[in-house]
């Protein structure tokens, strides 16, 4: 085996390893959502709404530059069912339900993010 082939195999292994470790870490952090899981809608980095995954609904979203997306929550998962963007990647993305998963519409700068109930910010508590 010549030098470049060996190096390239090493490179491939290295990348696969990195990807594997990354995937493991991410799966570990994306625990199955609790019953309080919510789909959070962010437009241009700012939160515009959050909806619990256990209540079916359809929410229209106003993205940047007049872009529109429609979030659909059904059967405990979130999915984008309508999008005005040219590429439609957000539309083809499979439904998400795990904590930390996202569906992104880059042209409209829309991000749907799943947050489990545990991590929701607590505004205050009394003892």
């Amino acid at each position: 085996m010549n030098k470049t082939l060996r190096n390239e195999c090493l490179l491939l292994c290295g990348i696969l390893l990195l990807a594997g470790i990354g995937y493991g870490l991410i799966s570990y952090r994306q625990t199955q959502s609790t019953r309080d899981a919510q789909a959070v809608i962010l437009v241009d980095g700012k939160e515009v709404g959050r909806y619990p995954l256990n209540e079916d609904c359809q929410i229209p979203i106003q993205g940047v530059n007049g872009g529109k997306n429609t979030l659909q929550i059904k059967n405990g998962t979130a999915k984008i069912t309508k999008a005005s963007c040219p590429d439609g990647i957000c539309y083809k993305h499979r439904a998400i339900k795990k904590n930390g998963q996202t569906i992104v519409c880059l042209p409209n700068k829309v991000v749907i993010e799943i947050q489990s109930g545990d991590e929701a910010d607590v505004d205050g508590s009394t003892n």
Partner: protein
Amino acid sequence: MKENRTKLVAYVGMLISLAFILSYVESLIPISLGIPGVKLGLANLVVMVALYTLGAKYAMLLSLIRIVLVGFSFGSLASMMYALAGGILSLLVMFLFYKRTIFSVRGVSMLGGVCHNVGQILMAMLVVQNPLLISYFPVLLISGTVAGLGIGLLAAMIIKRVEKVYRI
């Protein structure tokens, strides 16, 4: 010498058009996996050939012009941003390796493919200000490498046949 200059202009012009057409063809192929950023990178075939026959400067020029042209014709101004981020990062990394014997054309292309995707995701994370997008990294690392390998194998075959004619 003037003839060489003309040849150069014609050659680069041809490469730009090729890269442009390949980008268009690629945009017609639906991405079946439903994960953003998984693509073949056909236009990078041309960039690789330019890199190995004309050198770094022209490869970068070619890539930048192609991305801007595509952005203005059938892409969008926003998509140009991500393509630029991925393209520039990928080229910078390839510049480090293409003259060395550590990697052959295959390997350089693999590296380029990975870095292209890394660059795009980093830019996306920056634009929507959401670090959670990092969850796309594993898939894109692999798809970038595989696509890079395929393109690299093709590029190696083309470069071998074309370099005697087009080394300017």
